[in-house]
């Protein structure tokens, strides 16, 4: 397992490792505790979604696109819907746009809470991890009661949203985010004053302003390096044209900066949700969109919790797309990670990787489960028989045991 080359130790982190939520390999070369080289291997989650989209209708694609990423599903489906709406030229009702923004910001809240939790877990700060996930659960419950599911809410449809946003939903949301706002203040306080936390995050995983520009970093990674790059501000879409969004940046350029940026962004999201619920116009929530989409190509951008999402849709006039391409934010940040890991320490590796909020599925996007007959799935009885046979080979007959 270990290859010792004089003083160097090669440590494989992944494909399976407790600090990774999804498979990826980080081959870390160590000199003592110091990282001298890091090689990233991704691609374990390549599911061929883009190819799958080409052989399905647009409405079916919507649900595939939503499943590109488990966390920022709404951001992906919004970008895809925007592309289709632009191609057909329909105007989405403003009420629907507001609802999309509310859901998007709730998603940002739960994504950042998830991140804060995992980041704290990486540095062994489990109490904070439990607290943030407890709060995240409330938001997931909100999503389940409004959207219909905890993660893949399925709020978007072409030309608007699928469910009416009623009084109970808005009062539930207000109640939850008021409570959350209090907790966020406390988390900010802890993040700024807890010495063990600060000592683990400060100066770790530096990505300077120049490097961030050079490597094309997006999202909180870029914002923490002082790059004010946020699609909601740079190219406002949907209801963001009307809702004021404050750009959050920080100049610390390390993991600590990213933490602060994310907590501040959550507080900003709370404000946006309050504003959007207060100023939501009445009217329809959806307009009809034809099944056949006119030919053309379109590029849409959306600010997902992790950064910029780019969707490219090219249609050829039929009811199936010619090409769909999804660019997820994590893809842009991988290059920076390699740079951040070098010259760091082993203890900093997990938190540095976590700091970009990596989403491997997003990155790899793109095999679809065929419902063919040749898939080897064992049912309970077969599995039991298999284990009995296996133990027989080992010389143990389980069936003979009387328990």
């Amino acid at each position, binding site marked *: 397992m270990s290859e010792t080359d004089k003083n160097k130790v090669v440590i494989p982190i992944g494909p399976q490792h407790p600090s990774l939520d999804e498979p990826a390999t980080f081959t870390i070369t160590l000199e003592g505790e110091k990282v001298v080289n890091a090689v990233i291997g991704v691609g374990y989650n390549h599911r061929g979604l883009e190819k799958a989209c080409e052989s399905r209708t647009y409405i079916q694609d919507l649900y595939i696109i939503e499943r590109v990423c488990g966390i920022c599903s709404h951001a992906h489906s919004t970008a895809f819907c925007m592309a289709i709406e632009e191609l057909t030229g329909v105007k989405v009702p403003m009420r629907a746009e507001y609802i999309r923004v509310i859901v998007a910001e709730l998603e940002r809240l739960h994504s950042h809470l998830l991140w804060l939790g995992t980041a704290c877990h990486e540095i062994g700060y489990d109490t904070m991890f439990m607290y943030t996930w407890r709060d995240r*659960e409330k938001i997931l419950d909100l999503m389940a009661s409004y959207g*219909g*599911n905890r993660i893949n809410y399925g709020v978007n449809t072409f030309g608007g949203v699928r469910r009416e946003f009623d009084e109970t939903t808005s009062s539930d949301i207000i109640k939850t985010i008021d409570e959350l706002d209090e907790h966020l203040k406390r988390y900010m306080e802890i993040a700024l004053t807890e010495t063990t936390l600060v000592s683990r995050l400060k100066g770790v995983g530096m990505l300077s302003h120049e490097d961030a520009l050079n490597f094309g970093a997006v999202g909180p990674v870029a914002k923490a390096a002082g790059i004010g790059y946020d699609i909601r501000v740079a190219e406002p879409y949907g209801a963001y044209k009307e809702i004021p969004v404050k750009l959050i940046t920080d100049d610390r350029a390390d993991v600590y900066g990213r933490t602060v940026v994310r907590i501040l962004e959550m507080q900003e999201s709370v404000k946006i949700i309050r504003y959007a619920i207060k100023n939501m116009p009445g009217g329809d929530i959806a307009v009809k969109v034809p099944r056949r989409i006119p030919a053309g190509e379109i590029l849409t951008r959306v600010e997902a919790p992790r950064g910029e999402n780019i969707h490219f849709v090219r249609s050829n006039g039929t009811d199936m797309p010619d090409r769909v391409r999804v660019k997820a934010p994590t893809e842009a940040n991988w290059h920076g990670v390699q740079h951040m890991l070098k010259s760091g320490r082993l203890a900093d590796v997990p938190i540095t990787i976590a700091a970009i909020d990596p989403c491997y599925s997003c990155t790899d996007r793109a095999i679809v489960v065929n419902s063919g007959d040749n898939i080897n799935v064992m049912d309970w009885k077969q599995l039991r028989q298999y284990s009995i046979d296996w133990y027989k080979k080992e010389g143990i007959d389980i069936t003979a045991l009387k328990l």
Partner: protein
Amino acid sequence: MEKKGPGKIARDALKNLFKDPATTSYAGKGTIKVERGYRGRLQYDPSKCINCRLCMKDCPTGAITIINEGTKEEKKMKAVLNVGHCIFCCQCVDSCNKGSLTFSQDVDFASLNKEDLTVEL
């Protein structure tokens, strides 16, 4: 602004000792709390169905199948759902113009056999 120091979360931690836990123990005795608008198993009303099969066309995973066992004049509609394939997006409910498909809050379909997952609605 508080002063910097270790163990800042102790206040919250000690408070929580005297509060009810946020989690519930599920194994063996608990029940699942299902939220108001949660999308569960589909419900099918054969009397309203006109056999347009839009739901089959729009289903992203091909989980639902509508079968007419009768004749064209005297319909005897049946819907078969493969729960293992269904992603509970309820696009079929949206696609159905006649309202013959609705969703329920029933979410518990775990089974040890693959065959049990295909159910007649």
